């Protein structure tokens, strides 16, 4: 993937700090994701990865620092967050499909209510994306009737239906049975190869090796390492990163 170094970054996180009460979850974090870039975020459990990625579209407010998405200031209270979010796709660990709506309705709801598309147009778009993730046949089923891997693919299609300018993934495969992980990763790899800007929290180092441009390592709310993929795997800077990689890659 070629990245234009001079362009303004798609996601720009500058000196962000966040507290839950007196507990500091994010400590002066800064990083950025350029258009078309794929950035993988990893780190131990509870290190603040989910919190970090949720601050990007304002799902979690921050107390200090600035975050810009496509030039729009997420951290400015005056920003219309609802509007911004409709352009930023997000996929969660537990899929979070709406269980009371059929797959088709899941894909159509936000298109109609947020983008004000009419039902026909929205359905057409939704079904096309469903086809793309290989699930056209399941359109009339309900989320509870699909396997985890299928649900996660629907969740990706749902996000894509909003024509996002970038996509955020929060451990999209960690709630999946081992045999289903790959069907989801395959969709993500394809997306990356098509040039989608992506920020992905994941432990799947195979995926990182394959498509990431950069890997970020977070621990205790701090960004300890932020390096191009090859450098990250071959010559991790900090000892902690090495230790983490050894833990996660052995057996």
């Amino acid at each position: 993937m070629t990245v234009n170094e001079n362009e303004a970054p798609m996601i720009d996180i500058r000196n962000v700090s966040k507290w839950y009460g007196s507990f500091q979850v994010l400590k002066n974090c800064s990083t950025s994701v350029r258009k078309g870039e794929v950035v993988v975020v990893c780190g131990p459990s509870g290190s603040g990865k989910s919190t970090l990625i949720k601050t990007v579209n304002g799902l979690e407010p921050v107390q200090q620092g600035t975050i810009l998405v496509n030039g729009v200031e997420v951290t400015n209270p005056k920003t219309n967050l609802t509007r911004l979010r409709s352009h930023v796709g997000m996929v969660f660990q537990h899929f979070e499909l709406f269980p009371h709506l059929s797959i088709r309705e899941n894909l159509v709801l936000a298109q109609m209510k947020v983008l004000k598309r009419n039902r026909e147009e929205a359905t057409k778009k939704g079904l096309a994306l469903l086809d793309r993730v290989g699930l056209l046949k399941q359109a009339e089923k309900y989320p509870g009737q699909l396997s985890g891997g299928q649900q996660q693919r629907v969740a990706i299609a749902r996000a894509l239906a909003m024509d996002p300018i970038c996509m955020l993934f929060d451990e999209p495969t960690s709630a999946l049975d081992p045999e289903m992980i790959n069907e989801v990763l395959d969709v993500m790899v394809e997306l990356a190869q098509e040039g989608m800007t992506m920020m992905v929290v994941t432990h799947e180092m195979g995926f990182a090796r394959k498509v990431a441009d950069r890997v970020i390592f977070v621990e205790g709310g701090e960004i300890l390492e932020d390096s191009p993929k090859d450098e990250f795997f071959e010559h991790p800077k900090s000892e902690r990163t090495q230790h983490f990689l050894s833990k996660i890659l052995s057996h």
Partner: protein
Amino acid sequence: MGFEMDWSTLFAISDLSDTPWWQYMLGGAGITLALTFSAGLLALVVGTLVGIIRTVPNRALNFIGEAWVELFRNVPLLVQLFLWFFVVPEFIPPLKAWMISTDPLYGEFFCAWIGLGLFTSVRVAENVKSGIKTIPRGQLFAAYALGLSTPQAYRYVLLPLAFRITLPPLNSEAMNLMKNTATSLTIGLADLTLRSHEMGEMTFQFFVAFCFATVVYIIISLVINRSMTTLEKAVAIPGLIRR
């Protein structure tokens, strides 16, 4: 001992209504039913609103919701009904004027309706609130991430789910409400319990009267329970195991 049960008393003409006792008591059951439905509706509307404002991120609204719940939860229904009947009209002259001018039954029914409805609204609010709270936060995040606004997220995601979660507890609240209507006998509303009591007092056939009332209550309970369960099944989400 005076405990001989004389079932024929049910068919004797009541001094109070010129109809047989069974018919008079069934009339009371009609009042019980009307009260259950109307107060249930009031409780559902008010309770849902109160339940929602207790979950939204707004301190003032949260406080109003909490205060409402504490106020109506911590005073026995019996006392609340009394206050609605004897005390509140003193402070609302138009209400009092209406109660004087109309058939007393309407005045009593109105007080029982508002008393029971608001008392029960607390139960509904509690259930709606905990229904919303049991929905994983991820659902709200997902709704926001798609660009839905807070009212849209409530309207299209949280509330439809919360109501399905809330239905089983609301089933037993509906039965509780139906039973609580009996308390309105203390403000003189001639519901099923009061009328069976009247029959007992006038004919001394307490056992017959209470047996009749008990059976009618059981039938009403069953009907309410069945219809709520049917509703639960009708709105059940395919693929989700019912708890």
